């Protein structure tokens, strides 16, 4: 158990420590700028891999002098871990973005396939082809940027070339592809591994000596060496390169031999002949390969019998040259021994191979090349690997070796564990697709629902873990739903959590969130989110936005509640001039069909006010009649708040006293009088708020109504 000491050292850094793991000690300096002493520290998880550290300063007993001193504490976020040294955070995000489409495509193909199986069509045997296509997409995604092409005129001494910066991640992915996804290459596995090592040998230089490392170092010194063939390193490097099958490099280096120089050719004819003979033999090495690997040396054979024939012939040519009498006549000791060593490597001399290679994987590859080119079956490959590990025991473990051993052991769980430990959740979540394509047994292991995982399968577990990682970052949470929805058991629940957790403050983010709800038909969630947004905007004074979101979520009860609050300010501020401000909000409420809760009152109120305005402007009786119509509608409507009754009636005084004719008929007048009566009862109740009207308002309304009633009765 590691303990965290909440102890502040000199510079105020927080130092986590544990007695038994001193190596893993990590120090994160905190620049909190608080004056010591710190009285209390609280630590909690923040988003992703960050800790939220809250520091509380000791409250000083004496009054602080400057305002800066008053800060009683500070909250900081500390990002844990230094991340992946090989791949930056932004590159990881790019990988995450790029893998969405291939993953989604594969999932949709899988569900289409399972539909087909249900409809009892013959089982598709070529599922692995889909997986391979997926794997190729991911591989191209993992490819780093192409390195700038070298100078057009190639230096004579350019031996090793890199097309792109290799990464362990891509190396691991390709390894999984070779073993699990690419069923076609099963017969050419060893040859595939040779190619793989040629691409990624440089990666192993970080932990041990490699052929690539030797070559790269030698290349640097090459220009300074006067007589190349007299330097033992020249021969050593060549034998190493040959042992792992880098034929073009060896041939190129052989051609640098001093005997090729024009001034020397005449007196070193025999020596040169031997060098050339070896170079030709190397370039004629038969390779079993199903596709032409452009530009590579060696003779390619697609069928095994052809290859075996060529292999035997080639071996006999080497033996013949090895036994040739010319060697005795060759004067240059270095050339003679060097060339013969190369021949020994090609003949598969275990000792020479062991000498030439640097670590067990290189030795392993050299075995495939020169001793057992016909190795097939994972089991025999595993036995060979064990033999090589015995011959060259690894001094330190590289990221990739654990994975290789796991694959050769055919232990799916080890492969998963290694991928997860060394390459993280992205790798596991995506590589699992390759593993399930690998074998039925692996598929059972991975799809099996496990009690100890809470009833979910390994596949689901790893997808969920990856989705959690995505969810924890502000820029990647949007792709988490794609992975969550592919998880049958827990996915939807976690997706709902994720969507609820997003901030609703900014419209862009809110709308992106709602869009995801729409895609996955999570209407209840989007309606909840819109409610939250509505309340947020309302509370922050964006009344229009609040009303909009509550309307969108069809939340009538909240609309009714906010209507009451809104009317308070309507009552105060609506004069004929400031009504312009309200126009927009009323427009927003839209047509009658939309849920507006109590707010629909505003609509009618606006209509009434407008026709009233016309009445005051012109004198048209028509406008006045319209205004009366609106008034009656308002007074009849149960959603009209009681507190508006009196102001409405007071505003309408002119209508009641219309001199041309009574505008209200008997029943309408009675309705208004009844309302007035109701109002005087309501006054007796507590909490009644008196409208801000002149004292004589009520009596003048009564009088006007009574007059109108009289006139109306006479009319009728």
């Amino acid at each position: 158990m590691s303990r965290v000491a909440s102890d502040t050292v000199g510079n105020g850094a927080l130092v986590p420590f544990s007695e038994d793991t001193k190596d893993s000690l990590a120090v994160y300096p905190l620049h909190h700028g608080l004056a010591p002493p710190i009285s209390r520290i609280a630590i909690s998880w923040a988003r992703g891999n960050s800790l939220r550290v809250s520091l509380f300063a000791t409250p000083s007993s004496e009054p602080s002098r400057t305002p800066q001193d008053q800060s009683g504490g500070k909250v900081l976020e500390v990002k844990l871990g230094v991340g992946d040294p090989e791949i930056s955070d932004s590159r990881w995000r790019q990988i995450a973005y790029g893998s969405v489409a291939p993953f989604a495509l594969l999932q949709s193909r899988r569900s289409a396939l399972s539909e087909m199986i249900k409809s009892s069509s013959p089982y598709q045997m070529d599922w692995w082809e889909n997986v391979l296509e997926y794997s190729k997409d991911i591989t191209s995604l993992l490819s780093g940027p192409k390195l700038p092409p070298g100078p057009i005129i190639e230096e004579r001494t350019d031996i090793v070339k890199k097309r792109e910066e290799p990464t362990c991640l891509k190396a691991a992915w390709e390894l999984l592809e070779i073993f699990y996804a690419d069923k076609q290459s099963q017969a050419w596995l060893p040859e595939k591994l040779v190619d793989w090592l040629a691409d990624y040998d440089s990666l192993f230089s970080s932990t041990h000596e490699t052929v690539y490392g030797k070559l790269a170092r030698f290349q640097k010194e090459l220009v300074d060496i006067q007589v190349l063939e007299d330097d033992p390193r020249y021969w050593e490097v060549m034998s190493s390169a040959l042992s792992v099958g880098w034929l073009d490099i060896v041939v190129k280096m052989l051609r640098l031999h001093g005997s090729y120089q024009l001034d020397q050719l005449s007196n070193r004819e025999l020596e040169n002949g031997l060098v050339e003979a070896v170079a030709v033999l190397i370039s004629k090495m038969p390779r079993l390969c199903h596709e032409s690997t452009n530009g590579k040396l060696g003779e390619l054979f697609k069928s095994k019998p052809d290859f075996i024939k060529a292999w035997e012939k080639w071996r006999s040519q080497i033996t013949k040259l090895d036994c040739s009498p010319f060697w005795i006549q060759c004067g240059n000791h270095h050339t003679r021994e060097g060339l013969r060593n190369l021949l020994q490597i090609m003949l598969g001399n275990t000792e020479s191979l062991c000498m030439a290679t640097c670590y067990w994987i290189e030795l392993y590859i050299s075995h495939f090349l020169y001793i057992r080119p016909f190795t097939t079956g994972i089991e025999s490959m595993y036995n060979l690997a064990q033999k090589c590990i015995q011959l060259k025991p690894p001094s330190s473990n590289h990221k990739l070796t654990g994975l290789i051993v796991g694959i050769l052991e055919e232990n799916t769980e080890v492969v998963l564990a290694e991928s997860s430990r060394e390459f993280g959740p992205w790798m596991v979540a995506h590589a699992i697709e390759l593993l399930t394509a690998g074998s039925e047994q692996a598929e059972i292991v991975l799809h099996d629902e496990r009690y100890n995982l809470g009833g979910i399968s390994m596949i689901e577990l790893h997808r969920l873990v990856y989705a959690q990682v995505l969810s924890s970052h502000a820029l990647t949470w949007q792709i988490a739903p794609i992975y969550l929805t592919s998880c049958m058991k827990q996915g939807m629940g976690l997706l709902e959590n994720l969507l609820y957790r997003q901030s609703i403050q900014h419209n862009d983010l809110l709308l992106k969130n709602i869009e995801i709800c729409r895609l996955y038909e999570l209407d209840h969630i989007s309606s909840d989110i819109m409610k939250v947004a509505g309340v947020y905007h309302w509370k922050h004074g964006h009344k229009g936005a609040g009303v909009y979101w509550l309307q969108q979520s069809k939340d009538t009860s909240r609309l009714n509640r906010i209507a009451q609050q809104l009317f308070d300010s309507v009552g105060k501020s609506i004069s004929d001039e400031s009504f312009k401000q309200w126009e927009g909000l009323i427009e927003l409420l839209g047509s009658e069909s939309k849920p507006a809760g109590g707010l629909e009152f505003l609509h009618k109120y606006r209509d009434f006010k407008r026709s009233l305005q016309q009445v005051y402007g012109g004198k048209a009786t028509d406008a006045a009649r319209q205004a009366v119509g609106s008034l009656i509608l308002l007074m009849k409507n149960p959603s009209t708040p009681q507190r508006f009754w009196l102001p409405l009636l007071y505003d309408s005084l002119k209508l009641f006293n219309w001199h041309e004719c009574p505008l209200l008929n008997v029943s309408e007048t009675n309705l208004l009088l009844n309302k007035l009566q109701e109002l005087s009862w309501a006054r007796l109740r507590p909490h009644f708020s008196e409208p801000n009207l002149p004292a004589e308002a009520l009596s003048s309304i009564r009088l006007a109504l009574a007059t109108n009633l009289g006139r109306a009765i006479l009319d009728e």
Partner: protein
Amino acid sequence: MAATAMLESERPVIHRLPQHKYIDAVRWLPPLSTFDRFAVLAAFDTDSGSSSIEIHSLNPNPLSLQPHSSFSSSSRVSSLRASQFLQKTVVAASTAAGSLHILFSDPADATFESEVSMPEEEGLHSVPGSCVDLMDGGVECVTVGEDGRVNLVSIGNSNLSCDRLFDSGGLVSYTAAKWASPMEFATGGYGFSLQWWDKRKPGGPVSQFKANWDQKFTAGIVHSIDIHPSRKHTCLAGGSLGTVFAWDLRWQQQPIILSGAEVQSISESEVWEVQYDRCIKSSATSTRILPAMICSEDGILAVIEQGEEPIELLAEPCAINGFDIDRHNPSDVICSLEWEAVAILTRR
């Protein structure tokens, strides 16, 4: 509805350029010389939590964007405009915190030369979200916000002066703005509302678009407005639910729906930006709405035209948050993609 299939030879050339930062907004800069081309990007770096407004130069062969000049902004940019004024390039950016930055760039080498800002403390807008539009010729900005304020900001060499034209006190929020003439501009907001304003008539919008949307039609939010210089009476707006409509001031009640609802909808999600497409020569008569380009949350960049099938230019697996058509070279379009990248299209 399916978009018209394009012939292989007609397809635009597309370059996707990863930026390793979230691109909040993107604009072409008016060209300074025939050979150099520049774009201005508003970027947000999540690793450091910093926002910046960057001028990038566009290098051909292979097409790439090279950082050229940068200004670090105090908060994330919510909208970005670029224009030219007296041989100087003016870039206007409003931020999520409610501040406004006006950047002047040197005409000779396209680097930021000077800057005037209206910091958030001056209360141009209260958070969150505001939108700016720079008048053509660049002496005045209009800024509108969710807080319901409509400000006119005139740009001086060393200072900005702000004049509040209207304040709805939050009763109405504005989410888009666009100048129509040196005196008039349009704004948009919630419920597909549009307002027409005249500088000379403060106190409220001169005209409001009162749509009689169908019963079935759900209203959304206007995200972007464009007004064509030759047809100032028509206001083109794009917003939620794949809706693009035009509002003709002369026929106030009836919107002309170009996309959305049951009209040839190419997208069902948010239309983040609309611009008249000056590249396509319309066969349409003068009564029809000119062709327009849109980009959407579901990753579509397309050209729509009244009564025609939409033409899909780009279909991305992620959202296209914004785009800009190069005014001087309308076949070129720059888009900001959700996944920390920029795409540049060249139409043939």
